[in-house]
């Protein structure tokens, strides 16, 4: 048990170490450090496309971290820094893309799909419910109804006529 626990702890620390590329940057204050962290986590590495630039070891990610650190030191706002990168690498570098004509599908597509799904579901539920609400047999023609009545009557007669002593109801159908 103890061994298992220490193994688990070791595994945990290993994964912590692997989480971020290591740079040694100095910041003026803690706020700048926090902004640096948020920015590098929200910006996407153009080279290794499924990593943010905080995690990536690609040379370009290293350069971009350096640029971001430099711009933070120059007192640029978060917006200016993101704009700087978008101007060079396009909206692609944002993990939090802006809403515009090109990203409408991305932002609203899921909602459209959800609405469609709910619509279909509602339709199905309503359809299932309708026959029971309006009662059975509504879609019989007058002729069919007459025949049904006749059949029911004759089966009732039959049942009472040959009621067997064993008490088993014979006419199930």
């Amino acid at each position, binding site marked *: 048990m103890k061994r298992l626990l220490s193994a688990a702890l070791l595994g945990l620390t290993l994964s912590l170490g692997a989480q971020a590329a290591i740079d040694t940057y100095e910041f003026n204050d803690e706020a700048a450090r926090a902004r640096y962290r948020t920015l590098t986590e929200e910006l996407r590495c153009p080279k290794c496309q499924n990593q943010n630039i905080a995690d990536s070891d690609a040379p370009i990610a290293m*350069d971009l971290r350096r640029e971001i650190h430099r711009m933070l030191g120059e007192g640029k706002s978060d917006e200016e820094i993101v704009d700087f990168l978008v101007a060079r690498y396009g909206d692609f570098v944002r993990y939090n893309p802006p809403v515009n004509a090109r990203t409408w599908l991305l932002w609203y597509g899921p909602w459209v799909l959800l609405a469609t799904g709910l619509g279909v579901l509602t*339709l199905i539920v309503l359809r299932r419910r309708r026959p029971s609400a309006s009662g059975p047999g509504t879609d019989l023609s007058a002729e069919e109804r007459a025949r049904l009545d006749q059949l029911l009557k004759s089966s009732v007669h039959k049942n009472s006529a040959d009621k067997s002593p064993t008490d088993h109801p014979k006419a199930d159908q």
Partner: protein
Amino acid sequence: MKRAILLLPLVGFLVLAGFLYKGLFLDPRDIGSTMIGKPLPEFALPSLENPTRNLSAADFKGKPALVNVWATWCPTCRAEHAMLNQLASQGVVVYGVNYKDNGDAARKWLNDLGNPYRLNVEDPQGSLGINLGVYGAPETFLIDKDGVIRHKYVGAIDERVWREQLAPLYQELVDAR
């Protein structure tokens, strides 16, 4: 109406299949470029061949040209080099940006493999690279005679890429002069 609803899953499938089919032919590395239609960014960096001389964006103007971002640490660049030599011998103007590289290694490379570049600018920090929106090597920009970027190609230029993508655009720029 009932029939139409039965067709819904088929329509959904076709839409999805359409997107996936298109996805088959998309290159995820191609993230486009925001630089198309913009002039080359300004820079003041040393020439690779003659480090005491500083080059600027103005030095790349005058003729339609390819601006090739390369480095000796990039194996794809080695594969591309012969094609650049061939293009240069055909009279295509090629400028080089030696990207985040060691100057001595780069000069040796040009000595050994031939030099297709009219001019080569040394960009050891990758600062020009960032301003160009470069994220790897090789990348090649097609610029017109005024130094405006017209096209970007990511990856090695080979016979087919040149013939199908770059040559027609280059020819158009040459003819427009």
